[in-house]
């Protein structure tokens, strides 16, 4: 860790209001940096003797930027002590800012940015993707980087359907993940620094077939990960944890495929949901339990303004329910689970999985976290691509009438 960092931690544990109070009572001067995986840029708040004097969130500066940062209920923060040269743009008292910030958050005037409300965010996701929705990962752990590679704008890093088992981490730059179909190229997701290219399946199966194409946007520097070391680590995990990871990976792949299917418009939601009963209801946060599917089939479905959207299918051996250590943005907060009639499920003790997760090496943990973030974002994109599809058809119908 950087030596000048005086205080760092998770926003989920210590909220911005608490941090400001803490820095206020210790009269600290320096920069508070907030990192949220769901925001394209980090947020900055500048403090002189415990009082915030300026803030920055993307293009916004001053008090409005500071208020908007109250919506970052997830993510991490870092406070570094340093001399502040920024202009004094904020004159309000510390406590006034905190109370006003909290109030704006409660009033809904400041938007929460995080995975739990991913469903609400889905609507403006589409707009964001074209502009700046970039999934970034945590800081790169260079221990696992064995080589660096450079790619130029437009170059294909991996191609769908080709064999390959490298996993890369993006050191610098932006990469588009796309799917090639007959009608052209469908963009899936845009990833940036710290994100990973290549799925976990790469070292599960020999001669893995790439599920999507990765294209460099601008010049990109990639770090090649030591896949042997990762594979070894993977081999040392318990069977349960490995099945859990495989299950996550399958979901990710399905979500990606779903974008293509919805793009083509050939999904029969009603057909899929026929004869199925709800096991977990969306938004039911009371029961926090992880299950494994023993028999039958289940579907992960998100309820949106445009009706239910089937996100992925689950089969024997797949996991579902609340994963306490990952934010998937799916069930129970952002999706329901529907099971077939012959379904059999078993409860899983998430504690042992969590312990194993905590023991993972930094890089492996980063891969898992990054996959969870991508999953949450991809689910949003699936929903919004359906919404836009509907708009398009509505447009067409409108035109036909005139």
């Amino acid at each position, binding site marked *: 860790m950087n030596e000048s960092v005086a205080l760092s931690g998770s926003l989920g544990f210590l909220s911005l209001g608490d941090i400001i109070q803490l820095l206020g009572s*210790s009269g600290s001067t320096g920069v508070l940096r907030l990192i949220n995986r769901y925001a394209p840029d980090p947020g900055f708040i500048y403090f002189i003797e415990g009082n915030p004097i300026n803030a920055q969130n993307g293009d916004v500066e001053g008090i409005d930027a500071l208020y908007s940062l109250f919506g970052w209920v997830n993510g991490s923060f870092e406070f570094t002590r340093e001399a502040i040269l920024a202009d004094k743009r904020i004159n309000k*008292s510390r*406590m006034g800012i905190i109370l006003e910030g*909290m*109030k704006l*958050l*409660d*009033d809904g005037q400041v938007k929460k940015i995080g995975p739990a409300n991913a469903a609400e965010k889905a609507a403006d996701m589409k707009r964001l993707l074209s502009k700046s929705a970039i999934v970034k990962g945590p800081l790169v752990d260079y221990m696992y980087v064995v080589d660096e590679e450079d790619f130029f704008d437009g170059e294909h890093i991996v191609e769908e359907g080709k064999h390959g088992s490298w996993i890369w981490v993006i050191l610098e730059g932006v990469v588009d993940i796309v799917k090639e179909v007959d009608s052209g190229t469908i963009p899936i997701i845009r990833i940036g620094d710290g994100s990973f290219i290549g799925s976990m399946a790469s070292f599960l199966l020999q001669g893995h077939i790439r599920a999507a194409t990765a294209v460099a946007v601008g010049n990109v520097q990639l770090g090649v990960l030591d896949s042997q070391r990762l594979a070894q680590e993977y081999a040392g995990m318990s069977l349960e944890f490995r099945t859990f990871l495989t299950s996550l990976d399958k979901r990710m792949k399905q979500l990606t495929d779903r974008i293509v299917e919805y793009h083509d418009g050939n999904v029969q939601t009603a057909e899929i949901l026929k004869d199925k009963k709800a096991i977990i209801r969306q938004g039911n946060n009371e029961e926090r339990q992880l299950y494994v599917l023993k028999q039958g089939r289940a579907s992960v479905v998100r309820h949106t303004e445009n009706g239910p959207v089937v996100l992925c299918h689950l089969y024997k051996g797949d996991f579902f329910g609340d994963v306490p250590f990952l934010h998937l943005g799916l069930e129970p907060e952002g999706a329901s689970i529907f099971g077939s009639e012959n379904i059999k499920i078993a409860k899983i003790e998430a504690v042992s999985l969590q312990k194993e997760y905590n023991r993972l090496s930094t890089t492996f943990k980063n891969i898992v976290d990054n996959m969870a973030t991508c999953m949450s974002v991809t689910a949003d994109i699936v929903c919004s691509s359906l919404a836009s599809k509907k708009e398009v058809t509505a447009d067409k119908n409108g035109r036909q009438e005139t």
Partner: protein
Amino acid sequence: MAIFNLKKREIECKVVYYGPGRCGKTTNLEYVFKSYKKQVTGEMVSINTEGDRTLFFDFLPIGLGKIKGCDIRVQLYTVPGQVKYSSTRKLVLRGVDGIVFVADSLEVRREKNMISLKDLQSNLKEYGKSIFKVPLIMQYNKRDLADEGIPLMSIEQMDRDLNRQLKVPSFPGSAVKGTGVGVTLKTCLMETLKSLQREFKWAK
């Protein structure tokens, strides 16, 4: 839990005014702010929340002495009553050291008082505190309205309604006129400090 600021040699504790909407929490604090101006440090922060206002300021009590050579600074808050202000309420109630419950004496508000008190109990529970252990003072506000012929509940009835189990000190008050405001705050501060001393076993 009070905050020890070793840099400034201060002990910061938090007193929160709780009560149903429009019961006079804000008026109480505004009166304190006006009449004890010398003891108030910094400005009063006022946030407009729906149907209510949330106030905050720092207060230096006089005549309560020092604890272990540290000055005592009190942060006075009112809390927004509406359900939706949960983040604000959470922030305000976290680490609260003393509470003034302002009850409305109007007969029509009888139920509102009880609901709010229940609400306080459940909120405190969320932060691992018991309403029976937290220093709590009751103020039966708006007594002055009796002169205008508006039906009020009797003190005895309010005690029965709200204070039967709690058995905490209670005072009649009229925040508009300032009656009872001082004594409520002073008693609450004394109770708060007593409880802090108990907590840290400073007193023998």
